[in-house]
């Protein structure tokens, strides 16, 4: 189970792309240069990066309202993402979806989702298509601890298990559903226990450690590809910012020292430290990657800001697919 250097560099870069993209988006939002809501993925990068590094291109992912990180990790185009967050014509969804509906079907990223748990049945449907075509692809669904309280999750988990579909459930347990703590919303501490109820094998992984997530995801994906049905990973993680927006400390629903204890386990610091310790990457190399990614993010902001707003004439386009003539 040796992690080769390429995978480590790859995950490190994916996490940095998420982090720096999100930090930039957060600043724009705070500066009122971005409309709507923004749910930042900062803190949870190791989950998206670790899982997506273990995927094949044909594997699908489905995401949540906190979905930027998943698209970045699947290889999303930062320019189109930033433009979409700004509601611009050049965005992934031509400005019609925004942060909560960002998607790239060409990358098999089936979309973020504004309804908590709403993407889980859809991911199971994609898993059905994979099994139907027998193409070896796995449908991966990211969702939070909060979504595991919603009926759609339970219906979908049961169906995936009953039909033995290649679906990997990745629960990012960040301990809060919006502004309410996990222990006030459910009587169990480990969401993975719910998988047991559906006969889905599952495990817990440290969601702040990309290498651990990667290894676990590879194993879980292998299980799905073998035809054995779905599998389940619960990643213990934490969002550094508020549910919505960019506030970190002084929030009424979570203690600051708790935030600090998770920040001390920052997943990017963690992988950089371990790579340095193993002699794989020097501090200079890490800084160079960071600078390169920052430049790409800056370019994305510039691209987004210089892009036009959507053409009003296209307001009614794409409500329906017109029949091919």
């Amino acid at each position: 189970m040796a992690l080769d250097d390429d995978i480590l560099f790859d995950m490190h870069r994916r996490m940095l792309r998420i982090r720096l993209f999100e930090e930039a988006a957060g600043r724009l939002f705070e500066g009122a240069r971005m409309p709507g809501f923004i749910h930042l993925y900062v803190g949870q990068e190791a989950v998206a990066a670790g899982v997506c590094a273990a995927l094949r291109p044909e594997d699908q992912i489905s995401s949540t309202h906190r979905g930027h990180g998943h698209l970045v990790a699947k290889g999303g185009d930062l320019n189109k993402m930033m433009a979409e967050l700004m509601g611009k014509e050049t965005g992934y969804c031509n400005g019609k979806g925004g942060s909560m509906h960002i998607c790239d079907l060409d990358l098999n990223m089936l979309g973020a989702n504004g309804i908590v748990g709403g993407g889980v049945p859809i991911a199971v449907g994609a898993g059905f298509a994979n099994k139907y075509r027998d193409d070896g692809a796995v449908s991966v669904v990211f969702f939070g601890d909060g979504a595991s309280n919603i009926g759609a999750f339970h219906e979908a988990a049961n169906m995936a298990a009953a039909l033995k579909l290649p679906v990997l459930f990745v629960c990012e347990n960040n301990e809060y559903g919006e502004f309410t703590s996990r222990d006030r919303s459910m009587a169990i501490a480990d969401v993975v226990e719910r998988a047991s109820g559906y006969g889905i094998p599952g495990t817990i992984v440290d969601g702040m450690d990309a290498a651990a997530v990667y290894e676990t995801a590879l194993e879980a994906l292998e299980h799905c590809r073998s035809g054995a049905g779905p599998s389940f990973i619960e990643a213990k993680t934490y969002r550094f910012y508020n549910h919505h927006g960019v506030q970190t400390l002084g929030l009424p629903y979570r203690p600051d020292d708790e935030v600090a204890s998770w920040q001390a386990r920052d997943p990017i610091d963690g992988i950089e430290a371990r790579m340095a310790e193993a002699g794989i990457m020097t501090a200079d190399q890490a800084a160079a990657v960071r600078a390169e990614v920052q430049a790409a993010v800056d370019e994305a902001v510039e691209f987004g800001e210089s892009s036009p707003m959507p053409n009003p004439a296209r307001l009614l386009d794409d409500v329906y697919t017109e029949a091919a003539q």
Partner: protein
Amino acid sequence: MTITEPAAGTRELKYTAAFNEALHQLMAEDGDIFVAGEDVGIGGVFGSFAGLTAAFGERRVVDTPIAEQAIVGLGIGAGVAGLRPVVDLMFFDFVMVAMDQIANQAAKLKYMFGGKARLPLTITTNGGAGLSAAAQHSQSLEAFLCHTPGLKVVMPSTPYDMKGLMISSIRDDNPTIVVKSKMLLGVSGPVPEDMYEIPLGTASILRPGEDLTVVSYGRMAQESLVAAEQLAADGIDCEVIDLRTVQPLDIDTVIESAKKTNRIAIVHEAVRFGGLGAEIAAQVQEHAFDYLDAPIGRVGAPFSPVPFSPSLEADYVPNAERIGRELRETIGRPLPGS
């Protein structure tokens, strides 16, 4: 759209059999089509899916848990991933159980994604009262669906339309709900053996007439036709329009007819308040106000849940006799003594 002439190879088929034949022919033609839902493997509750498992196997005819959200989600995900799913919700009432997946997900997917998705999903279900199935197995909920941009809603009233509309619905690249009327399941009519499409959004004129336009769909289109024949005996000549598809709505055919007859009434089985009749009436007055010689009539169910007892249910659901009475009111020629 004029009355369609039966094509060669036409024979009598029941409404359900027309539905079933469309599925058999489509599945034989396109390997990406599969059917999933509760009990579809043994043919479904009304035998709509009979013989499919024998013909196409369990891979393509998939029994699911009783889980409507997951059933529709299965269709959405498989559709986005490139298949052409047909998922069944058994009773129209169960659409409400899956409403998040239908209204928040399926309907908006393409638009939210800037047009980059295609969702060739067909949802089939059985609607309407008449079987003493009571308040949760008898509803007509099409207004909920028609109010949601992105969905298409199809409500056939004849075996012929059933087959042609099913073929169009399944070949359509949008999420489409096909509502069978439970009281029509056993009704027979001429259906061609070959495959044919009836374009979604095209009404048919079941009976041409000069005095009054009656707009309906589903089972009530047939009841309206019976009422029209009864009125004809009294010299009232109704033009009966069967919308066939209620979203998209063929308002042009309706308006053209209204301009000709100068009187119009809308008949549906759904609750009258907030029903499609209100929308059609509004559009007619917008486009043909100056042509109207009378207030627009509306026939629908009263504002209550569907009752269980056969006698109460008979009072609740519009029928030819009640429709006829209301149409006479619209045209200003009530029955003597009423």
